[in-house]
């Protein structure tokens, strides 16, 4: 029955593309989480009146974040082609999409991390300092746990955005459902492939959002 409704769908290709999309999303989300968190914490700690208050570092980091956040992703991919080539020796395949995905989304997530950290009650940080806590202790035991729900809902939003980015990365031959929809669906006018790829992407997004919401709710004890 499926084959009648979807005459042009090659299931082998479809599953492979889904796997590629998932692979790119998961790896880039993971790296974005770590990198964005680190940049966000740096931005927070170097802001005025904070433990590492430093105008220059704060300004430079903030500017870099803003620049990369402002470049449209499709242009970023093209700009990063030489960098990717240098890094991986190729611009084809799922791994070649990762640098662009991470550089595109980490600054975006870093901003969300900064907002989440600013929401933490200043008094709690002061209390930790009054107990003689080191900055590293404050990062691991105060900043991250106290901002966790916001950090997790932020990474959920970022992950969903990344699914969209992987589809765009498909244009430069990164593979995945976006690539399939573009090459098979659009260029060869096989609408059924486009529609099925869209449905698969939607399912991935819904599952990501559901997992993200569930974990966020579970960690929030406020």
């Amino acid at each position, binding site marked *: 029955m499926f084959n009648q409704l979807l005459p042009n769908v090659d299931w082998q290709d479809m599953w492979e593309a889904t796997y590629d999309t998932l692979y790119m999303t998961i790896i880039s989300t993971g790296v974005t989480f770590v990198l964005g968190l680190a940049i966000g914490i740096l931005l927070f700690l170097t802001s005025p009146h904070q433990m590492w208050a430093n105008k220059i570092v704060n300004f430079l980091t903030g500017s870099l974040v803003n620049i990369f956040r402002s470049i449209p992703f499709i242009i970023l991919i093209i700009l990063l082609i030489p960098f990717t080539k240098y890094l991986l020796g190729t611009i084809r395949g799922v791994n070649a999409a990762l640098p662009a995905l991470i550089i595109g989304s980490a600054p975006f997530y870093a901003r969300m991390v900064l907002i989440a950290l600013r929401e933490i009650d200043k008094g709690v940080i*002061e209390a*930790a300092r*009054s*107990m003689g806590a080191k900055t590293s202790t404050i990062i691991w035991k105060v900043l991250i*746990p106290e901002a966790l729900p916001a950090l997790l809902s932020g990474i959920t939003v970022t992950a969903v955005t990344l699914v969209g980015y992987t589809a765009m990365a498909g244009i430069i031959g990164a593979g995945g459902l976006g690539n399939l929809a573009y090459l098979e669906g659009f260029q060869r006018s096989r609408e059924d492939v486009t529609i099925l790829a869209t449905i698969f992407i939607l399912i991935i997004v819904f599952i990501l959002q559901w997992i993200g919401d569930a974990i966020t709710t579970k960690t929030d*004890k406020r």
Partner: protein
Amino acid sequence: MITLKDISKIYKTKSGEITAVKDVNLSIKKGEIFGIIGYSGAGKSTMIRLLNGLEKPSSGTVEVNGQQISSISGSQLRQARQKISMIFQHFNLLWSRTVSENIAFPLEIAGVSKAERAKKVKELIDLVGLSGRENAYPSQLSGGQKQRVGIARALANNPEVLLCDEATSALDPETTDAILELLLDINKRLGLTIVLITHEMHVIRKICHRVAVMEAGRVVETGEVLQVFQNPQAEITKNFVMQVSGTKESKESIEQILVNYPTGKIVKLTFIGKKTEQPVIAQIIKEFNVEVNIVHGNITQTTSGPYGTLIVQIDGHPNQVEEAFKVLESREIQAEVIEHV
């Protein structure tokens, strides 16, 4: 125990310099409960934060527990802070941790082993009366319970000094009293030096041994609590004393009496310690031909004894009234004639 020498703290802001604390000299003894009272903006918050190095003085030195807090930094300061703990107006608990985990936090910072942490946490939970709530999250606790967690957390590393930053200002009167009782109990049992800042004279009255009154960054008056109550010098101190003696509310009734009985004298009597128990009014009435009309009366307990005020109208022949005054004076009861309100 704690010595502040020539302390000034100046903040530089865009709109100029702000002097938060100016030329303060204070010394606080070991085992004492020392109160600093002042209205908001008087510099009390800055003062208390100078004691654990959260703020550094612009000039002068701060010595706590034998260490120059104003000049040490880094790991030395962090070590010192483990023995100078602090509780806060808004409790400042980590919402992501349970009661037990919150209390364990300073122990984690101090590098105490897991088994010892569990033992100490249990002890502290019993001490502050939170048994059965170990696994609750702060959001499930009342204000008073949260402050109990705050106190337990502050006591975890066996501190020498406990700083209380408006610790009861966010609590209702009954809870305030319970928390103050707990602080008094801890002070007696552990011999802990307590420094607290507040804007409520009630808090000073209830648990402090000595008090410093702050206004616009300066300490305008220091002394034993009872002495300050009996004989406030600065205008602001008189205002604070009125908070407790209730004379502010009696203003209206005094006004009314001054109008209704223009002949007599309105007198404010201040009793201290044992003298509060003398039947002095009855004696005056019996001995002299005077009429005594009670306008307002109040008695409060301080850590060093009771303190009472009585506002009366004394009417009669001027000579007789004069004699009555002499009796009061001979009993060392302060009598102050109020002519205008």
